[in-house]
């Protein structure tokens, strides 16, 4: 039915239905919350150490029941008169086992034996023996027992039972080795164990291990065995108890989502489930659960002493002289890096993107190169170039200016040294963001300026620069946040010269006092929040629409007489910040002795390359890194695009919440993200992703998603909404408009954003060190392993390898997509 079919004045029932649906959802959430709470109470009464216990016990209980019905019961009955004796034997063995486990255990058995059916005691012996046999049977003897042919098994089992009751009977051949020369109750125990093994060949160590893991306390084990034997489990109760936290969380989040949805609908007076809102809620839920909740748990530790709210932790940390110095250094370093980085990035982006400079493509690749290697590797290269004693640049300068043997004149182990290294590594963040936007800029405004008689320089100053404000702000923010929360560079360049930053202090604290580390990280969180708010304020004042049509070809500014000198200057900069450090990394990887020139006789070698790439762990680490980084980048970009669209294209109330959370994550020091995830994602809030690839991917997304989002937002903010509106007016739906208009226009930025998340995730170190397991080791950690203990040469080898992989990947995708898909 078309909309026009509705009679004028007829009221739609949709709002009412929507409101009822919302109310129902809200109550469903409340019910889940209540059930989860009840489940929690049940769990805490059980004394089990983990909720997994219920799952394991339930599974073992069903298994035991099935065995009793299908095997034990029949076997016992076959013994005729002796069945009674066997039941008594089971009770006696169970008593003795119980007594060994806990004092008073035997009386507990006799209670069961007297009050309950003896069947329970016999059943009870099976799981108890499976988990804690009084005597062990080694694997080879176990193999003998299970080797009995299928047809003879029943007879074999009955013989075992009879032997347990009568020690004069000869043992079956297959069980003789297991029983050995044991006598008395030991012999009986081993025979019963052999019986159980034979009856249940499939019982594997995994069941036992799972049971032990979930029921750690011995007292609780007794209760567990009892519950298994009695098999009194209600599947629904078991589900609620085992998933209590998840059920509660689901309930709470459903309620919160409903409240948010209601607020959206109320503010827009639009009573329907808009897909945009649902998308936003999805992203918000992800961020709230994986980022905000862990951070709040950490913050609670900071602001609480013995469970009560207190500022004591903060006071002690923020009055420490070194910490204050570190705060000062961090602010100076991050601010200087931001200013310097943006001052470098803007002219470079302009020259490379908008002028007829020679070798623009080459320069473009050169300027983003430093983004493609781990910062700590770059720091190592700068250490070799600028250390005051024998740094190559210093040696050169001392030679040129005849300064003698005194250290210097440059010293990397200082605050300016730190700023320089940070700048060389983080200016590409601004360069990439600005140059993308510049390529998408509408040239008509600049052309108008030129036609009106303004010089190229004045045009840049009065037209280009203001139009670039959102991208400049986004780029600058990225540089600031990255520099402030960076650990690798200050740890290598700063610490040896006693230049501490907040991150180096956090890591030092974390090894002894985690709460102090968290208290210190509050500063970085606060700083990143302030910068986030500031950066949002700047573009909010004006509209900076720079793309108004699809076929945009920015005007190329002719540099005329400046073309050669500017090319030379840009080239010199490229050589200095990219080629020299990378050449240092490459030559170091080809040296035997790091102290000598690569050209010294006998010092040139490929051994490091051979060793690094034949290391048995390298393929696994490379694969892990590629997969984790690709997943983080892809999911991260889906979220970023969603948020970018909602932020720029809608007036949705609360649309800045996810963007705020994304920026908060980016400003959080890596070590804090990792610690908070370890503390909260281990099942205590219903999700256990500890030691899995998921926890690494989640951590990478939290840390680096802002790179993607900022790129998308800045690109989208430059595309006039009229383009989408014309598409909608022409009859295209929302998805078609996105597919045919918006996405093609922002695609290069999406691709750049993808890479901006992919690359740092690929070689990430700080979080990976803490979150990786033996199976989820990444190439970044491998490199760090080489760097810390093997040799600088090996780490440089892997670093150069990483660089080659990333560059090749970038080139390959660029080729495949005809230049549309690359940084």
């Amino acid at each position, binding site marked *: 039915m078309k909309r026009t079919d509705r009679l004028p004045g007829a009221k739609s029932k949709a709002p009412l239905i929507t409101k009822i649906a919302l109310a129902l959802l809200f109550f469903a959430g409340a019910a889940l919350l209540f059930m989860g709470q009840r489940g929690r109470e049940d769990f805490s009464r059980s004394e089990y150490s983990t909720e997994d216990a219920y799952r394991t016990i339930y599974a073992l209980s069903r298994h035991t029941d099935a065995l009793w019905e299908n095997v034990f019961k029949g076997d016992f009955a076959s013994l005729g008169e002796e069945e009674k004796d066997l039941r008594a034997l089971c009770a006696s063995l169970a008593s003795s086992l119980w007594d060994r486990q806990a004092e008073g255990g035997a009386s507990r058995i006799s209670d069961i034996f007297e009050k309950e059916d003896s069947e329970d005691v016999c059943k009870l012996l099976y799981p108890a023996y499976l988990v804690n046999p009084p005597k062990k049977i080694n*694997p080879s003897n176990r193999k003998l027992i299970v080797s009995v042919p299928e047809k003879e098994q029943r007879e074999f089992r009955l013989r075992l039972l009879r032997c347990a009751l009568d020690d004069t009977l000869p043992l079956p051949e297959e069980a003789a080795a297991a029983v050995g020369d044991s006598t008395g109750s030991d012999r009986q125990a081993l025979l019963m164990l052999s019986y159980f093994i034979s009856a249940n060949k499939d019982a594997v160590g995994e069941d036992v291990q799972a049971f*032990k893991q979930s029921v*750690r306390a011995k007292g609780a084990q007794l209760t567990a065995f009892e519950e298994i034997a009695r098999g009194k489990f209600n599947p629904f109760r078991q589900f609620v108890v085992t998933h209590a936290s998840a059920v509660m969380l689901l309930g709470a989040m459903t309620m919160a989502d409903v409240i948010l949805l209601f607020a959206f609908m109320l503010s827009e007076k639009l009573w329907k489930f808009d897909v945009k809102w649902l998308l936003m809620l999805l992203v918000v839920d992800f961020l709230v659960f994986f980022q905000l909740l862990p951070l709040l748990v950490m913050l609670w530790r900071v602001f609480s002493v013995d469970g009560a709210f207190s500022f004591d932790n903060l006071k002690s940390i923020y009055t420490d002289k070194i910490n204050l110095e570190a705060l000062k250094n961090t602010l100076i370093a991050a601010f200087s890096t931001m200013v310097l980085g943006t001052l470098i990035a803007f002219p470079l982006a302009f020259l490379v993107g908008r002028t007829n400079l020679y070798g623009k493509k080459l320069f473009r690749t050169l300027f983003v190169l430093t983004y493609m290697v781990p910062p700590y590797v770059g720091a190592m290269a700068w250490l070799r170039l600028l250390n005051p004693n024998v740094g190559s640049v210093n040696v050169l300068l001392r030679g040129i200016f005849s300064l003698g043997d005194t250290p210097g004149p440059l010293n990397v182990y200082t605050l300016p040294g730190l700023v320089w290294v940070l700048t060389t590594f983080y200016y590409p963040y601004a360069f990439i963001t600005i140059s993308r936007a510049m390529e998408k800029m509408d040239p008509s405004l600049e052309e108008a300026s030129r036609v009106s008689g303004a010089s190229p320089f004045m045009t840049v100053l009065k037209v280009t620069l203001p139009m670039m404000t959102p991208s400049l702000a986004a780029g600058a923010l990225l540089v600031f946040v990255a520099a402030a929360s960076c650990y690798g560079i200050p740890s290598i360049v700063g610490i040896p010269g006693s230049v501490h930053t907040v991150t180096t202090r956090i890591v030092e604290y974390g090894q002894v006092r985690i709460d102090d580390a968290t208290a210190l990280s509050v500063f970085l969180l606060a700083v990143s929040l302030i910068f986030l708010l500031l950066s949002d304020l700047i573009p909010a004042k004006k509209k900076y629409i720079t793309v108004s049509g699809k076929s945009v070809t920015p005007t190329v500014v002719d540099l005329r007489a400046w073309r050669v000198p500017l090319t030379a200057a840009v080239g010199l900069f490229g050589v200095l910040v990219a080629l020299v450090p990378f050449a240092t990394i490459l030559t170091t990887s080809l040296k035997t002795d790091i102290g000598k020139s690569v050209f010294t006789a006998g010092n040139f070698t490929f051994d490091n390359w051979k060793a690094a790439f034949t290391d048995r762990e390298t393929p696994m680490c490379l694969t892990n890194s590629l997969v984790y980084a690709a997943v983080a980048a892809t999911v991260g970009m889906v979220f970023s695009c969603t948020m970018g669209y909602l932020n720029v294209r809608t007036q949705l109330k609360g649309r800045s919440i996810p963007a705020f959370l994304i920026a908060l994550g980016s400003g959080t020091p890596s070590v804090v993200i990792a610690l908070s995830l370890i503390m909260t994602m281990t099942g205590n809030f219903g999700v256990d992703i500890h030691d899995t690839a998921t926890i690494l991917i989640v951590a990478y997304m939290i840390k680096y998603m802002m790179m993607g989002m900022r790129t998308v937002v800045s690109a989208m903010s430059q595309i006039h909404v009229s383009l989408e509106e014309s598409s909608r007016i022409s009859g295209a739906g929302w998805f078609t408009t996105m597919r045919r208009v918006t996405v093609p226009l922002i695609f290069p930025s999406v691709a750049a954003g993808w890479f901006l998340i992919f690359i740092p995730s690929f070689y990430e170190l700080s979080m990976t060190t803490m979150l990786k397991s033996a199976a989820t080791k990444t190439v970044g950690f491998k490199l760090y392993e080489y760097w810390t203990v093997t040799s600088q040469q090996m780490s440089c080898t892997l670093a150069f390898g990483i660089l080659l992989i990333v560059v090749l990947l970038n080139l390959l995708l660029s080729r495949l997509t005809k230049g549309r898909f690359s940084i």
Partner: protein
Amino acid sequence: MKKLLSFVLVAMLALGALPAAFAVNEDVEGELVIYTSMYVYDMIDEAIKKEFPNLTPGVSGSFFAYGPSGDLMLKVRGEMAAGRALDCDMFMLAEPAFSLELKEKGYLEPFEVENAEEILRFPYDEDGCWYPVRVCNMVLAYNPELDESWAKKGVNIPKSYKDFASDPTLKGYISMNNPKKSGTAYAAIVALTDKYGYEYLDLLRQNRVMYDASGSAAISKLQSGECAAIMILEESILKYMEDEAKRGKEVTNLKVIYPEDGVILIPSTVMVVSDEYSKNVNSEAAKAVAQWLLTDEAQQLILDAYMHSVVKTVSGVPYNSVDTDGLIENAIPVDWERAYRQEEEIKGEWDKRVTQ
């Protein structure tokens, strides 16, 4: 003939002993994960696989989960703070101070080592919660190839820890690991401040010591001539020397200085996590492996990994090193109780006197 006879005897003994040992270790099963800060662990990993055929390593195929001691401690503290089980069943960490903490917090399961008192060169926990399993040796090192160049600059190569910190010619030319990141560097600071008082830290500051995050960074400073001497673990230099020798280099450009005022021996410990907190609830297997690590056979692998053995009956030394008992005689003692109880104070003094 004598050689042949002794060979036959040894072979007979070995063949006789093998089935017995195998039978015992065959009973050990289940999964096991060991957190270690020992970098060269491959040989020991392989040996455990052979020795305990029914024991399953972690998902990566290795029993060992490696991390530099500082990073591992950070990870373990995070796991402890989460109030959950740890992700390992055993520890082989750098120094005993962390063992004292783990014991006090109830994370460790006591186990017995037969004749421990007679066979071990170093003290162990009286309740059996930790035993030394390898010895890291903190020494000084220099680059003999640059002797002439340093002499020209008037820089003296230190002979002792005292020289290292107090000889003014070394100002700006010395480096050590950051004690706030490295367990063994922290142990060294505990020993040196015990011997020379906190003034030793003032001297280090006066001599503008650089403190690095890693041994390999310090080695590169020595090779490049950025530093004249570094404080480093002997094993890093010995490994370098053997690697050089394997490359056919007769004279190495790095050498160990065994300080005249004594080396600092750090008996790295092995611990079994109690079932209440362990990953796989497999303390029996962990105990068996820990006990095996103190056998002569396993200790030989420790020597191959460039560390000294803790077992008296193992008389060999790591590649190109000196007699272990001789080192013990001249070692600067480390008060592990102080290292644990006064960690905050000692690291605070480091901050105050060196970092600021």
